[in-house]
């Protein structure tokens, strides 16, 4: 039983870390590719932007933490404080969601994405501390051209 636990922990740590690093590299690459289109959170309470067309774009992603992170956060729960291991999970989720929205907008021909809103919600059971930790991050905004 102990062996299984240690193996799961190791798999979670090494494979999870590797995949996360790769994902972050991928995100950085795509962020550089899409940097020419500004994404802004304002736009509703001011003059309408000068454009001919507008459309709604939405990007969403469901991310989860790996086994090691869940274990580390349950330890962290004992003493409280900053849960560093989860910060990267949400960071990569949020950036991925924004990128997906942006890539759709770019392929439509948007020059700007305005009034972007971000939302985070938990799916899965949060009442019992165990089980799936799945977080959905959504980004949506109006592309104009």
């Amino acid at each position, binding site marked *: 039983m102990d062996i299984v636990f240690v193996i799961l922990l190791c798999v979670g740590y090494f494979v999870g870390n590797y995949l996360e690093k790769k994902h972050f590299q991928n995100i950085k690459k795509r962020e550089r590719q899409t940097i020419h289109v500004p994404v802004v959170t304002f736009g*509703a309470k001011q003059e309408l932007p000068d454009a001919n067309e507008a459309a709604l774009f*939405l990007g969403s992603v469901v991310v989860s933490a790996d086994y090691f992170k869940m274990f580390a956060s349950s330890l962290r729960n004992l003493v409280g404080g900053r849960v560093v291991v989860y910060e990267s999970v949400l960071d990569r989720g949020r950036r991925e969601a924004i990128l997906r929205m942006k890539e759709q907008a770019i392929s439509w021909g948007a020059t700007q994405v305005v009034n972007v809103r971000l*939302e985070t919600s938990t799916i899965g059971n949060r009442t019992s501390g165990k089980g799936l930790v799945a977080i959905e991050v959504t980004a949506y905004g109006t592309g104009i051209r």
Partner: protein
Amino acid sequence: MASRYPNQASSGHSNIIITTLEGVPGKEVVEHFGLVQGSTIRAKHVGRDIMAGFKNLIGGELKGYTELLQEARKEAVDRMIEQANFVGANAVVNVRFATSSVAQGAAELFAYGTAVKVR
């Protein structure tokens, strides 16, 4: 650049304009019809849950869930558009999304906005 993802906001077979702004750029709002909304409640199915359980070991994106929620959100938007069509609007402005979990493993996806006529 071709996107790897189709438009996730709606199925796109309607000519209603949807924006998160308070109007439609390049057009003028001529009539307000009030609130329109669409919602759907979805539960995840067991097969996906088991796969997600495995995926949860190494972390990262749970594609099955992402697709499930995208599908559901599209339906919520489509229902909102249906309502807008019904009242005779040709645009929905100031659209917002909300998600809430109503029961164990079930989530409500909700979209709402203001139906208007633009010219």
